[in-house]
């Protein structure tokens, strides 16, 4: 495929610390370009997909993502999302999307009350999203989580609607692919690790696929498929319009 590279933007908030990892992860793909988007700016510089990275924006003070959500760049991200733009929030980025109201629910303190960094098995619950289209339904991805507040919660009515609308994208499961209390690192409702909005163009997940893109490293390469999905989606859309 010899199309123009897919243009990614990685937002940098003060305290973001996986911004460089996301940037690096995207640059390991051949058909991409990537640039940073500074939180005080409002220009998304024509990117086709926005990543809100992990880390501790504003030190996670007050509530994770609560202050970042008011950054000038976020208003542009909200407009972009409302116009169908692809937005992926990883960990702190997920928390910011939830705070901004772009994704349902909330993320509270892990039940263990400790920061937890460990490998988890994620089951892909739906491939009908721009972020998982390169996966198989039910496929297991082994990716690292690292967070203090990853305990996903949502009220029962919204949860029912999310299920009906196929918005649960990733769940924590055991190595056999089954839901299992021991496999849930943070107490998240129904083992939820990642969700999308009803329009399916905004996606948030607690685990860190950007630390799983190179086979030689401890993180393995299972996260690649999520980035590949975004790339495929943008390229397909470009073909359609072409």
């Amino acid at each position, binding site marked *: 495929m010899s199309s123009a590279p897919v243009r990614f933007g990685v937002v940098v908030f003060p305290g973001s610390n996986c911004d460089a990892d996301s940037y690096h992860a995207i640059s390991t793909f051949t058909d991409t370009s990537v640039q940073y988007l500074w939180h005080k700016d409002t220009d998304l510089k024509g990117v086709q997909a926005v990543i809100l990275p992990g880390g501790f924006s504003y030190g996670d003070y*007050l*509530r994770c993502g*609560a*202050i970042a959500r*008011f950054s000038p760049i976020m208003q542009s991200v909200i407009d972009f999302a409302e116009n169908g733009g692809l937005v992926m929030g990883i960990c702190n980025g997920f928390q910011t999307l*939830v*705070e901004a109201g772009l994704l349902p*629910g*909330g993320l*509270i*303190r*892990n*039940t*263990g*009350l400790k920061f937890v960094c460990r490998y988890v098995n994620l089951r892909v619950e739906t491939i009908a999203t721009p972020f998982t289209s390169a996966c198989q339904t039910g496929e297991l991805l082994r990716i690292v989580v690292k967070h203090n507040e990853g*305990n996903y*919660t*949502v*009220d029962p009515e919204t949860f029912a609607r999310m299920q009906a609308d196929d918005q649960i994208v990733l769940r924590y499961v055991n190595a056999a692919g089954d839901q299992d209390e021991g496999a849930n690192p943070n*107490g998240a409702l129904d083992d939820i690790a990642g969700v999308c909005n009803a329009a399916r163009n905004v996606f948030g997940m607690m685990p860190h696929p950007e630390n799983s893109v190179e086979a030689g490293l401890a993180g393995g390469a299972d996260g690649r498929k999520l980035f590949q999905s975004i790339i495929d989606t943008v390229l397909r859309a470009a073909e359609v319009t072409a």
Partner: protein
Amino acid sequence: MNVRVYVTPKKGILDPQGAAVERSLPNLGFTGVSGVQIGKIIDLTITGDGLTAAAAHEQVDDMCRRLLANPIIEDYTFEISEG
């Protein structure tokens, strides 16, 4: 004006920290404690030319709704006193 905002976990939302404190109290010899819930206090001062009590109230309420509390998981109340 001095403002004290109380932010508490919403009813029905799990409070892992409160639950953990409740679990650990008996080990320290405290019995008969229940319903532990942990929230936040935010103290601040607001000033403004000719700021009325009503205007201050509205401003703080706005700050709470938009920033200091997350209504999906938290409730808030506040007190304003002249100071």
